[in-house]
């Protein structure tokens, strides 16, 4: 049984990146005409679309909170997005779990008390999957929320890091993710440096955790710069249009 060599003798990874290198991130906001806010994010070969509807009237009266808005996150994976076609049902536990992670990540950041008795829907559509879905979704959701003009205390930037063979590596792709590598996803508020989500589902030696976390933290800071640039460019463009 041949195993994929994840780190070449020169210290390069399967896709030619250095261990501390992110994949290319391209993003745009306001891509959908129907949604109140939307964003499209390409993280390497992972492509995610996020749409925000709301704040609007809550769908179920029973769920209404009198002093704040409720967040609702729905996940949708396009059947053609993965290598193997898989029909994912709406009740797939894995998807529900991911949606719940995203929801809990944003709950402390969105100032929900400004929108009492209403609901904010965040819809995430994965169009192409190449590892790091959760981080891409959180980053896209941040941009879509900003685009929708929903009040937040800070950006939320997420990044993954893992331990590949002999050293920590940033931003694992699908091949690295699926070959028994331990992977940590963290979501950070870049201004305060607070961490809103840490998620790991595999074994990692305690001594290595510190390195991996600090690397992921660095990744978050970098992603913040990329996202922030897109948001600022968009805001400038809007300001220019309004001035005319």
């Amino acid at each position, binding site marked *: 049984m041949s195993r994929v060599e994840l780190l070449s003798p020169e210290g390069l990874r399967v896709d030619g990146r250095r261990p501390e290198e992110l994949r290319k991130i391209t993003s745009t906001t306001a891509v959908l005409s*129907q*949604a109140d806010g939307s964003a499209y994010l390409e993280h390497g*070969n992972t492509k995610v679309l996020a749409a925000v*509807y709301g704040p609007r009237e809550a*769908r179920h009266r029973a769920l209404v909170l009198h002093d704040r808005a409720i967040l609702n996150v729905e996940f949708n994976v396009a059947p*053609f997005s993965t290598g193997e076609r898989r029909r994912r049902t709406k009740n797939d536990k894995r998807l529900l779990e991911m949606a719940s992670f995203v929801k809990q990540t944003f709950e402390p950041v969105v100032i929900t008390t400004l929108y009492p008795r209403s609901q904010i829907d965040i819809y995430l559509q994965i169009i192409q999957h190449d590892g790091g879905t959760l981080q891409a979704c959180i980053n896209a959701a941040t941009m879509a929320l900003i685009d929708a003009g929903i009040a937040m205390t800070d950006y939320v930037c997420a990044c993954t890091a893992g331990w590949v063979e002999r050293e920590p590596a940033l931003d694992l792709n699908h091949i690295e993710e699926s070959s028994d590598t331990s992977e940590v996803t963290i979501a950070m508020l870049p201004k305060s440096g607070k961490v809103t989500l840490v998620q790991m589902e595999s074994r990692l030696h305690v001594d290595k955790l510190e390195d991996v976390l600090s690397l992921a933290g660095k990744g978050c800071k970098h992603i913040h710069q990329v996202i922030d640039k897109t948001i600022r460019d968009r805001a400038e463009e809007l300001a220019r249009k309004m001035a005319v």
Partner: protein
Amino acid sequence: MASASTATPATTAASPAFTFSASTFQKLHPAEYFRKFVSQGVRPDGRLLNGFRPTTVHHGVITTANGSAMVRIGGTTVVCGVKAEVAEPRLDAPDQGYLVPNVDLSPISSSAFRPGPPSEQAQVVSEAIHRVLKESNVLDLKDLCIEEGKAVWSLWVDVVCVSYDGNIYDAALTSVMAALGNVRIRNPTYEEGIVKVSGAEDLSDDNSFTLKLARTLSSATFALFDTNLVALADPNFAEESVSQGRITITLDEAGQICALSKIGAGASSPALLRQCLGHARERAQELRQLMKQ
């Protein structure tokens, strides 16, 4: 009292309480709002009655799929991906593969859609596309045979609607045809009950095949508006919701009709149908140009 009544006729007309802004009027009386435009021969978005929205087709946008396309018609955006999987053939058709289209109208695309199982509309569109592909023999299912009675290709054609602004059928069918047009599947080999698909080398004509499509379908949809039945080409969401019926014409490149459906709103005249057919022919020509890679 007398003095007040003499003043009323003039003031009521100009009274601010009875004048709305155009957008308020649209919300209160959407049909009447449309009627005002249509009677002048234009539509609220500036199109003429037979005008289609700007349309773009992008090929091969999804690298994880065997074939893919993204189609935009005005504010409607759909992504179509085709995945090929090895499957067992049916007993009554041992040499035929499968072609399974599915349209997903996810809540991301419009606030009108709710999360949950596929809506009636999504299923209707899926079935319409399934039928038109099957009935007009777009693809010979025997081409998908790997080993008779043992293994065939199953083509999953999934359309995800990303942004919904009306006329989903035209957008979905265009994306399906464009995606089928750029499908490339690695050559399989069948040996003792195991199908092997060649590995990692780059795709080329030697190690993969494309689909032979018998015809390229293109469709045009018209919304029927009002009792005198005006046909509005390529209706958007707002127009769909005030219209009483719909005519959809699907044509192939020879101009033959592959499917025709008219639903809702009373009887439409043969003259109106002929008029729609004329516009559909022009539209088909335009779409074929766009679908060429």
